[in-house]
């Protein structure tokens, strides 16, 4: 397909790898965080880390919405389905995220005791709206998760529901913000104080950046002196971004560069930003799996659209729940540990039976390493 195939050419990838090898300075180590799960997946799937010199290390970041969704939020969705009798619409990724009491949305759908949740997987908010239209006598809640890429479609759905007077539709809003998570990583003691997670730069998100633009990252380049290269999700995009980061480090530069200029501008998608600003406002604080409670790192539905806010409509309260004791998802999401450092990895925790959230989505660091990288460890 156009705009995909030409960015996956193996020969070009080998040549880019040769360029990277020729550009790294001897005796110098490079450590870059790919923020996005989309990049994590590409690195694992195409074996990009094998193409890199040993001195270039990629650290997986927290940009996987399913991975950072805390147990307490999934519990709220399960509560809606089991105890409030709603039709809960969700993206497929969240179905298997472990929740309290060994539950998940998938298990709640199959049945718990004598209760069975009416949980429906949707591809789009458009489908969730249609389910609400088709079931006027039922409450229909959309479980809205994701970063800035996925937030605008939720905003459109809420405005559409208002325009149609679709009174049985509401949204459990769990949308989170990329810049807040990057700040949290940069301010973490592992990076700032102890230096246990060396970070020389970031690969910036692809599709998040189509919406928010490249401007929000300028603060990180200026304030923290960290280079950021926004990159597409194809393997050649990632290789090129790594080369651009190596060059910035060599030259002592800390700038925002845009490798994904075919889709990302400095200002981003203003129409989408306006929709989001109209419907959502900053949440005072939000708990992330791995990053703990991060102030002003998520969105909530504005009062103007309160009628479509499931938290208000069903008087839901968030309750923080600790992760499984042996699970290292938290440390992995902060770049402190690698999937293979977790003793549950590949033993009791696998994509078929995930214990931690990073094993659920294909973008999760553990799932990506399990699917594509683990055989290398065995040899």
């Amino acid at each position: 397909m156009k705009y995909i195939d030409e960015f996956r050419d193996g020969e070009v990838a080998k040549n880019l790898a040769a360029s990277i090898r020729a550009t790294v300075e001897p005796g110098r180590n490079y450590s870059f965080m790919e923020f996005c799960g989309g990049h994590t997946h590409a690195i694992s799937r195409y074996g990009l880390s094998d193409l890199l010199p040993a001195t270039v290390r990629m650290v997986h970041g927290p940009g996987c919405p399913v991975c950072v969704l805390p147990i307490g939020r999934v519990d709220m969705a399960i509560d809606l389905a089991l105890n409030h009798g709603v039709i809960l619409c969700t993206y497929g990724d969240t179905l298997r995220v472990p929740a309290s009491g060994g539950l998940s949305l998938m298990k709640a759908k199959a049945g718990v005791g004598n209760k069975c949740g009416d949980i429906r997987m949707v591809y789009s908010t458009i489908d969730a709206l249609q389910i609400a239209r088709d079931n006027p006598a039922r409450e229909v809640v959309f479980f809205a998760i994701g970063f800035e890429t996925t937030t605008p479609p939720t905003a459109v759905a809420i405005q559409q529901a208002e325009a149609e007077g679709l009174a049985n539709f509401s949204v459990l809003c769990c949308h989170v913000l990329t810049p807040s998570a990057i700040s949290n990583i940069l301010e973490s003691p592992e990076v700032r104080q102890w230096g246990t997670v060396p970070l020389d730069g970031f690969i910036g998100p692809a599709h998040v950046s189509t919406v928010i633009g490249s401007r929000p990252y300028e603060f990180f380049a200026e304030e923290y002196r960290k280079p950021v290269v926004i990159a597409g999700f194809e393997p050649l995009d990632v290789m090129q971004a790594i080369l651009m980061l190596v060059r910035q480090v060599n030259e002592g530069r800390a700038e925002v560069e845009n490798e994904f200029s075919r889709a990302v501008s400095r200002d981003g998608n203003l129409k989408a930003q306006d929709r989001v600003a109209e419907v959502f406002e900053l949440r005072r604080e939000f708990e992330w799996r791995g990053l703990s409670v991060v102030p002003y790192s998520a969105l909530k539905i504005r009062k103007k659209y309160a009628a479509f806010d499931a938290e208000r409509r069903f008087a839901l309260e968030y309750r923080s729940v600790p992760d499984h004791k042996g699970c290292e998802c938290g440390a992995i999401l902060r770049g402190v540990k690698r999937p293979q450092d977790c003793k549950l990895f590949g033993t009791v925790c696998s994509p078929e039976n995930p214990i931690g959230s990073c094993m659920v989505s294909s973008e999760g660091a553990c799932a990506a390493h399990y699917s594509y990288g683990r055989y290398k460890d065995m040899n």
Partner: protein
Amino acid sequence: MCLAIPVKVIEVGAGPGDDWAIVDLGGVKKEISLALLADVQVGDYVILHVGYALSRLDPEEAEKTLALFAELNSVGTGAP
């Protein structure tokens, strides 16, 4: 989750409302919403995410990036 794919717009204004389009997704036709992207024309490639066009692909910028790969190649391999 943020995964999205480039698709070609083959019809604009077709579907439940004005801000809908039909795209070609590797041979499959699909209705998508243009509620989040202004001024989409037939023939444009857009990034499709959960049923919505999020961004237009700029063919010139794509060419520049591909040309950059080629340029770097010659540096990397020592070729002229």
